[in-house]
């Protein structure tokens, strides 16, 4: 694909099957306390 370079990302659709363990950090606890960003917490699911 000369004109398209796809960056390596986690497939969100596939994560439906192995997600939801809830062990990752609560969005607001790290540094902001005034907004909600959910894309910067690493996944902590060891079963995925």
């Amino acid at each position, binding site marked *: 694909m000369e*004109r398209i370079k796809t*960056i390596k990302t986690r497939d969100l659709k596939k994560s439906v099957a192995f997600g939801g363990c809830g062990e990752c950090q609560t969005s607001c606890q790290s540094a902001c306390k005034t907004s909600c960003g959910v894309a910067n917490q690493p996944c902590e699911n060891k079963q995925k």
Partner: protein
Amino acid sequence: MNKLVHQYKLNGYNIVLDTCSGSVHAVDEVAYDIIELYEKSEKETIVRTVLTKYADRSDVTEEEILLCLEDIQALADQGRLFTKDEYENLAMDFKNNSSVVKALCLHVAHTCNLNCSYCFASQGKYQGERALMTFEVGKQALDYLIAHSGSRVNLEVDFFGGEPLMDWEVVKKLVAYAREQEPIHNKNFRFTLTTNGMLIDDDVIDFANKEMHNVVLSLDGRKEIHDHLRKTITGQGSYDTILPKFKRFVEKRGGKDYYMRGTFTHNNVDFTNDLFHMADMGFTELSMEPVVCDPSDPYALTEEDLPKLFEQYEILAKEMLRRKKAGNGFEFYHYILDLENGPCVYKRITGCGSGTEYMAVTPWGELFPCHQFVGDSKYSLGNVWDGVKNTGIQDEFRHCNAYAREECRDCWAKMYCSGGCAANAYHATGSVRGVYEYGCKLFKKRIECAIMMKVAENCEE
């Protein structure tokens, strides 16, 4: 069902996001135009339109365009482009089926030794009386957390205020108590300390660097900016007092997490200069948040500030890329994206967890949905002895997710903000189900910049 594809151009890159699969594509301008037309036009129309637009380009032939169309279809077939949004019911079911609490913000001190003009906590008092949390109340909060955390191993506790170091001996005793409980209940406590730095000494540094998973150190940046709003009770700027303490704290942190956390206001829309100031002093983990205040406050951000802020976020992203290459990079909280090992779709659609898995505890043991609702009596949920009694309010928060607001349905950014901050929505619109549009605009800009940085790094490899 929606297919949320977002296209934008930034820093010389043409970027295509496929929201529902999480895919990111860096494309050339021809593919960019073809993707834009792909679902709206017939193949023949696309070929004709693109050939006309790029008539002066020898590499843009009918054959080339057809090849590109095939590539796009292949990505769609692989679930990497034009992915359907099929997550709405998951968001509802997931939260309805969970009653776990996994994080508490402990307001150990409703008092402060600074008098910052913009403080959303009204100089630490949260519109109430000054108070310090006792060990007994804090212990009960930890017991409540353990008892309601189900099978979750990682539990988070933030020592917050006001200024938590004004209740330091209680903080230390609570950490010791939690560590005793960990093996009994198979839990792992992660503590955060958020401090203005005034009372940092060697005891605080040594203890926090051993026990605190993360420390958040409040610094607004340049001395004149910091001192303008972050003053002592007697009206003196606090910069000169805290800076040497923060430097020593971070030097001895030994690589553990920390954030220098600033707030920018209408007074410093050129906030990147404050971030660069911190970076130039050797701090590498930085966060800078827009002020949360009443629009009538003199330092409130305005509509006129918005284009300037967008420009600032772009300046920041480009400078971060430059510094990283030069070997003196730093991290900005909102630009941290883990594309390969980031959160699953449940995390991305179920909201921040305030009022359900995350709550704030006052010095008296009263529970609120989060730190930003503390002091607003109609949002009192219950207390750490009897648990949540105000289930009506809790249900309001349980229903906050990436699909709770009509405005979010077609928004490409919802997988990055999960529907946004309920407190911001409430303060801007009077409802936790409202939308704080100003915050959304800034948030989207930040994510565009963060993804551009990932694209830039990938394209240079």
